[in-house]
């Protein structure tokens, strides 16, 4: 942990302890409400600052991971600030929860995106852009669901009895997805990543539980800011500070199985398409639902059509990207096959040279025999006394040449004998003559 992170952690611990003390003694009052709304904001700021320390120090995809992580914390902070603002200005006349709630959902989208980067893996794909597009698709789909199920109950009317259950279940689903993802990640990885993911898991279980508790308490009218109902949520976001402190010790490592990243990106894409596919299906099912106000039905249909237009445009873009990527890869493959062919040809040639060495060993006596014969005949020639001066010169030239050739063969043999270790050749030991 870096020195600054230690400082943030100490500060955060102080805030938590203070909260525990205050919650025990204080009675519900306006200052307590302001205090209770302010303390999560302070802890979130500390968490984001602690994560910021990791931006520049980490290798590979990790800086991006920490940026998304910090981004999630900042958005959570915004959502908290929204509530703080309302309570502080005493605008108690039931504020519209849309902004705060959608920010809360969005923050978790950031956390999910950070996890989808697979920060523990050293293999960073070339298709980061396409995957980012898939993630954006998924988040848009997610917000369409919020817009479809929850939003219409708040737009134009304030029907919390319909809005709250749908929003709570969406938030719960989102938390469960993150928790399952973290469980899988911690099961698949080894230290220090396992400990890191496990801590995140604990934090998100706390957030999910705390959030649920908070909402139930609010609906039951038992909640007031600054009470013990705040504790699980505060503890959860407090945990993010030591989690950020893990940063300097984390290093990406190679995947245990090849192509895992590719497989994951294929499945992300399929998931995104499945999500998009679900929207018109949900709308079709919604058409069969009777007794809904007309404006609500229209709002939903407009939302689905609008979302489909937006998502469809993105899918169009993505398909184009995919096609371009594919043709690029095909070109690369073709080039590398050409390259392979050239290398193969070179190897064939080398193989032939090697075989030639082997062949030469076998053929050495085939060359030596005729050379000996030529030498013999030339000696016979020089033995003829009537040989003219000029002819004798020829005969001697022949002898010289035979000597030269013989020397070449001998040197070759010596070379073959020395260099072939272990000797792949059999050398004819018979004397040449």
């Amino acid at each position: 942990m870096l020195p600054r992170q230690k400082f943030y952690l100490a500060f955060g611990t102080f805030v938590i302890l203070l909260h525990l003390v205050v919650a025990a003694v204080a009675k519900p009052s306006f200052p307590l409400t302001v205090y209770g709304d302010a303390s999560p904001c302070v802890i979130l700021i500390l968490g984001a600052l602690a994560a910021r320390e990791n931006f520049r120090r980490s290798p590979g995809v990790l800086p991006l991971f920490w940026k998304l992580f910090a981004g999630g914390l900042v958005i959570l902070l915004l959502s908290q600030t929204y509530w703080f603002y309302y309570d502080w200005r005493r605008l108690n006349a039931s504020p519209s929860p849309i902004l705060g709630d959608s920010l809360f959902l969005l923050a978790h989208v950031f956390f999910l995106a950070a996890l989808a980067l697979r920060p523990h893996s050293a293999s960073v794909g070339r298709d980061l852009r396409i995957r980012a597009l898939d993630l954006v698709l998924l988040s848009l789909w997610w917000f369409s669901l919020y817009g479809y199920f929850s939003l219409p109950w708040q737009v134009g009317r304030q029907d919390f009895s319909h809005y709250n259950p749908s929003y709570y279940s969406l938030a719960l689903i989102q938390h469960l997805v993150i928790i399952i993802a973290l469980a899988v990640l911690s099961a698949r990885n080894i230290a220090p990543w396992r400990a890191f993911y496990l801590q995140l898991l604990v934090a998100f279980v706390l957030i999910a539980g705390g959030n649920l508790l908070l909402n139930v308490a609010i609906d039951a009218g038992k909640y007031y800011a600054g009470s013990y109902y705040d504790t699980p949520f505060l503890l959860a976001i407090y945990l993010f500070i030591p989690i950020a402190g893990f940063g300097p010790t984390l290093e990406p490592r190679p995947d245990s199985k090849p192509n895992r990243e590719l497989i994951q990106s294929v499945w992300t894409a399929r998931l995104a398409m499945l999500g998009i596919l679900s929207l018109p299906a949900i709308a079709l099912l919604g058409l069969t639902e009777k007794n809904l106000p007309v404006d609500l039905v229209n709002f939903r249909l407009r939302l689905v059509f609008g979302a489909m237009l937006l998502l469809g445009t993105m899918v169009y873009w993505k398909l184009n990207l995919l096609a371009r990527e594919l043709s690029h890869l095909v070109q690369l493959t073709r080039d590398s096959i050409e390259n392979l062919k050239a290398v193969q040809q070179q190897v064939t040639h080398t193989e032939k040279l090697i075989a030639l060495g082997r062949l030469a060993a076998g053929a050495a006596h085939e060359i030596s025999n005729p050379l000996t014969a030529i030498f013999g005949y030339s000696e016979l020639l020089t033995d003829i006394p009537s040989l003219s001066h000029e002819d004798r010169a020829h005969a001697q030239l022949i002898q010289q040449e035979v000597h030269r050739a013989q020397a070449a063969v001998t040197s070759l043999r010596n070379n073959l004998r020395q260099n072939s270790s272990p000797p792949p050749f059999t050398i004819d030991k018979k004397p040449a003559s």
Partner: protein
Amino acid sequence: MPQGFALAAFGDTAQVALVAATTFLAFQNFLGSHSRVRIFWFLFFTGSLLWTVSNGIWAVYELWFAQPVPDVPVVDILLFVKVVPFTAAITIAPDRDQDAQFRAFGLLDVFILMLYSLYLYTFGVFAYRLLPGAVDTYNFYFNLADAIGNQTLIVVAGLAVLRAKGQWRGLYRLYFFAVACYGLASNLSNFAIDAGRYYTGSLYDMPLIAALLAFACLVLEGRSLEQAHPQKQATNLSLGPTTPTTFVSTHLAMLVALSTPVIGIWLLSSASAPPELRSFRIGLTLLTIFLLTLLLSIKQDILAAGLFGSLQRLSETYSSIERFKNHLTQSEKLASLGGLVAQVANQIKDCMASILESSSRLTSRPDTDSRIQNMAGKIGQYALRTDVLVEKMLHFAQETPLRLAPLDIKPVIESALHFSRIAKLPEVRVEITQEGNGYLVRGDSGQLLHVFLQLISNAADALEEAGGGTFDITIRPSRSQLILEFVDSGPGLKEPQRVFEPFYTTKPVGKGTGLGLSTCYGIIQQHDGEISCRNRPEGGAVFTIQLPFALESLPENSQDPSSLLAEGVL
């Protein structure tokens, strides 16, 4: 013939029979074709099947229920919808060859467009069926949609005529004629029906009969086309998918898919339509969006699978290149030895050249003594023999492109045996048998010599390990190929299926490179031949090489070194 039941019966039966025959023939064409053409016939078949069904229903209503000019919605739908596969059949461009992967791709686009036109029809025309008392509006829109569909088909067919070449052009021309007749017939009969003057078998049916006949001719023409259009793709070796060209249809399909939510938004904001029409259309639009998204998902998956495959192929190729490069550096020393041999061989050739010159000087002198003549002649002969041998070795080592020439294979095998140590091994019996004579193959003697040397050297190793045995080489002809079998009685191959893999070796480290047989495999492939291996049940390995026969005959004075070898110079 007067208007009446008999005429109607005749007219209906004739039409149904014609269109049913066309459907049947199209189905036959579909079964007998392949790749793109197959899809063409499939779409054609679908179109004509829809037509048959609609005409059949019409006939049943008219003859069975005695309803002149029946008004059955199913008939209308089928009648309109059949235009879509007919158009699609041309749009997939069956006359062009394309890779399987992108064929699936284009087909998906066609499906999207088909779905969309169906949607538009249901949206704009069929919806009025649901409204009570909107028959006139319905008829008007139906005629409009029908006309638009037919005009589109005519235009598409016309463009195809302009674009296509050869036999396909004739086919498209017939297609164009048929759809033009049909368009005329359709307009005419719609007009006549609305005017109340139509009856089955009337003169208004004449263009329709002409169109039907043209369609039937087209399918018959397609039969002969199929035979003249052999499988082109099978022969050309493709390394991977060709670069995907961005088709107009791809973008069109996407734009069309994107237009559906826009239509949905428009529907919601315009309140003029009657409520039941509006809700029907909204439901329809949602359903279409769902189906279109489904098709797009499939498309995306195909692309993703392509990417996945390409990436894997790429990494495989890269790793083979790495291994080959690695091998090249490792075998540098051995290869330099081969280079040395080549150098020495050149030196010997120099010596032989000068000996030959001297000996020819000696023999060319008329006044010399016969003994000198004789000896100088002998010297010349030996020098020539050495020269040929060395030349042979050099030829073998050269990095020459493949020179395929008609070749008698037996001498090449004999010279390989000659070079090899196998004959000198103790307790080893080598035998060559040839069935028949004078079979020539197309081959490069240097390259084939390499192959034989490799096989013989492997056999020698095997027999040495076994402490002796037999090595039989059989040359026998088959129908179009010469079959060579190299059979040894050694211990056999450990893994016959892996023998030709690069870098596969069973020899101790440093002895075998594991590339000898894979190089052989490459060489035989270049000869359009095949090499395979197996173990004999009674023990020992069999290598079989098949080489295609040469079509030309062997030239009389062949310069092929192997033929010199065969003449007993060695």
